[in-house]
């Protein structure tokens, strides 16, 4: 295998406190060295001048749709989209049919992944059998089969006793429970954030209080059991305060935010104008919230309280969104826009670049101790996987779903102008994706 030497870029490796013009040498599929003006004989040079060089992104929350929903996406299509978005390690949510709730189903899923995946994929197991919220799945067996975390994905574990038991059992295994923290009763029928826009459009609302109350319950149960709670896609300012307070008290709690909730608000449901209202592509669960919430989430990244930026990439078929707002499936396909929106927000001065890179790399790797499974994951330490993202912060581009690798063309960002994006992606020391742009 030929060595790959990436030169001239601004290298950001938060795990090692690096943010400087440094070269990185990949040898035998791993990081061999990071330093000034490296040279290596018989190596391929990649000129990253003007670009940002970071560890490959680690995503704790993605939907690959296979098995069960191949019309929305497959392991092959969605992991290609992940690759093109810079996500070289992703964790697949268990809302598949069948749900990975036992060792044989997990094993079969991992077989498919080994065959088709273009990036490293970890499986998240279901907390309850069939994700029905009624009886616990075979947690330790699924863990043994390879699940790195557990979640019922979009179905919150509503039963407090079941949640308590799951946190206790998984805590003993040292595994996180990633919970969509929502109160299904308070949210009943809701299709968007409850507030100014829902009252204007006459749409049933999902109150912020439903998330805040569920986070409070889950934190109390995590504290009582010693479990490891991961708050999936946090969206509310108050919910984030509760997480920050729990962290300050030393609880095993981590959290993630999506690029969509950092970039957009409930106003996206209005679409591009009065006649374009009820944009089903802006329907997502948990919903896009208020500007005050968005600003709080941005602060959560900039002060390091939020551990990870996770995509919640959720591809849907065209007909899943081409219908009445109430009937539309929730979710945004965002593997291929995440880096673009985040860098746009860096350019606007909203987000701190170093913190963003940390939340895309070492943050998630450590939150779920994935670096104990793959040494150096999310870093450019010697021996770490040769997974690298090369970002072009000066690239101006327009989101065009026709160019997406994902089957899901569902994004409210279609036609948006973004500043900054992925230029090239390397996994295992090999250049796997490069944007076709004129160099020099």
């Amino acid at each position, binding site marked *: 295998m030929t060595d790959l030497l990436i030169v001239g870029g601004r290298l950001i490796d938060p795990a090692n406190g690096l943010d400087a013009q440094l070269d990185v040498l990949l040898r035998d599929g791993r990081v061999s060295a990071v330093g000034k003006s490296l040279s290596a004989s018989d190596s391929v040079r990649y000129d990253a001048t003007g670009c940002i060089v970071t560890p490959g992104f680690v995503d704790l929350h993605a939907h690959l749709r296979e098995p069960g929903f191949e019309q929305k996406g497959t392991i092959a299509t969605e992991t290609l989209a992940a690759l093109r978005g810079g996500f070289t390690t992703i964790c697949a949510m268990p809302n598949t049919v069948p749900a990975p709730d036992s060792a044989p189903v997990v094993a079969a899923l991992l077989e498919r992944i080994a065959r088709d995946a273009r990036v490293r994929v970890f499986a998240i197991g279901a907390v309850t059998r069939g994700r029905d919220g009624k009886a616990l799945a075979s947690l330790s067996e699924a863990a043994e089969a390879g699940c790195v975390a557990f979640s019922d994905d979009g179905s919150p574990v509503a039963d407090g006793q079941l949640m308590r038991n799951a946190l206790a059992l998984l805590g003993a295994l040292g595994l996180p429970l990633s919970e969509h923290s929502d109160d299904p009763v308070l949210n009943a029928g809701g299709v968007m954030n409850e507030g100014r826009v829902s*009252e*204007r459009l*006459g749409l049933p609302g999902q109150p912020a209080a439903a998330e805040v109350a569920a986070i409070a319950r889950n934190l109390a149960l995590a504290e009582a059991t010693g479990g490891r709670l991961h708050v999936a896609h946090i969206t509310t300012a108050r919910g984030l305060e509760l997480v920050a307070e729990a962290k300050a008290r030393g609880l095993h709690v981590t959290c993630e935010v999506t690029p969509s909730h950092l970039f957009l608000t409930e106003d996206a449901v209005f679409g591009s104008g*009065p006649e374009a209202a*009820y944009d089903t592509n802006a329907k997502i669960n948990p919903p896009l919230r208020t500007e005050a919430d968005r600003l709080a989430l941005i602060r959560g990244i900039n002060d390091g309280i939020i551990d990870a930026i996770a995509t919640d990439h959720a591809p849907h078929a065209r007909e899943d969104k081409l219908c*009445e*707002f*109430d009937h539309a499936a929730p979710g945004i396909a965002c593997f291929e826009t995440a880096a673009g929106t985040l860098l746009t927000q860096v350019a606007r001065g909203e987000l701190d670049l170093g913190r963003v890179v940390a939340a895309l790399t070492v943050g998630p790797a450590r939150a779920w101790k994935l670096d104990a499974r793959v040494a150096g994951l999310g870093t450019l330490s010697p021996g770490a996987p040769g997974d690298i993202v090369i970002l072009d912060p000066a690239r101006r581009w327009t989101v065009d779903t026709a160019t997406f690798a994902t089957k899901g063309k569902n994004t409210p960002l279609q036609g948006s102008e973004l500043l900054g994006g992925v230029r090239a992606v390397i996994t295992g020391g090999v250049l796997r994706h490069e944007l076709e742009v004129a160099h020099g």
Partner: protein
Amino acid sequence: MLDVQERPAAGAVEAPAWHRKDLLDTDVLSRAEVELVMETADAMLEVRSRPVGKVATLRGATVVTLFYEQSTRTRASFEVAAKAMGADVVNLTASGSSVEKGESLIDTVRTLEAIGADLLVMRHGKSGAPYLAARHTKAGVINGGDGTHAHPTQALLDLYTMRRHLGGLEGKRVVIVGDVLHSRVARSNIWTLLTAGADVTLCGPATLLPRTLASAGGEHGRVTLTANLDEAMADADVVMALRIQKERQATGLIPSLREYINVYQVNAARAAKAKPGALIMHPGPMNEGIEIAPDIAHGVDSVIEEQVANGVAVRMAVLYLMATARTK
């Protein structure tokens, strides 16, 4: 193709400046557009007062009423309005059509366009459904009520009725009482009333008030919210009671209908707190004895039946303006 052969009451309507393909809500209507509808409705009311009460203005046009929800007065009103101008009218309901077989809304409106529908009057249980339909058909779409969102022709006929009694609405106080949160009538009324310069007071149980609409006031009128009906009634020029759905009790939004009646029924004692002669309105269908007392619903200040009659003229105006815009 649609051929507008006869302008009603020639001279009464000068050069219509209507350019909208669809009428989905009142929130986008300018003061001039609302005025145009009102003036055109005057001409239509005059037509309706003639012995025959019909013109051939929309001869050759096909108006389809597509109702996914039950309705008596709105559908009948549109049908009478369209026929009074010579249009061909096709009535479709969700039951008894391919909608029941799972045909999607978009397929349905495209099919109707293909068979020659010029205007689609649509009622749907989901907020925003007419917006989806309008984006996928060249036919003009008139929202005949969508979910808990909007009911623009009801708001226009309500405004028309108020103007006939009060003249202008500038500085007038309109109280809307009841389940405002789930009311498409209330929402669309807010926008026309604000545009006309009225102040709107929304009154009802705290669970049924859309709190954020308090900031909806614009350059002309303002919106205030209160749970206290006696307070709301003071100095009111118009009192509009909304239908209360019995399900609201089952879902816990109100403790009981009895309690609702005690606190929010528009009755004689409460009406007495409004300005003398204040108009009593209701969009129908009424639950007499629940949100409104029968003696008030049929009393001297009630214009509830007049609302229904004016509804035909206003819908004729809307159909006429939209059909005319299509021929340009």
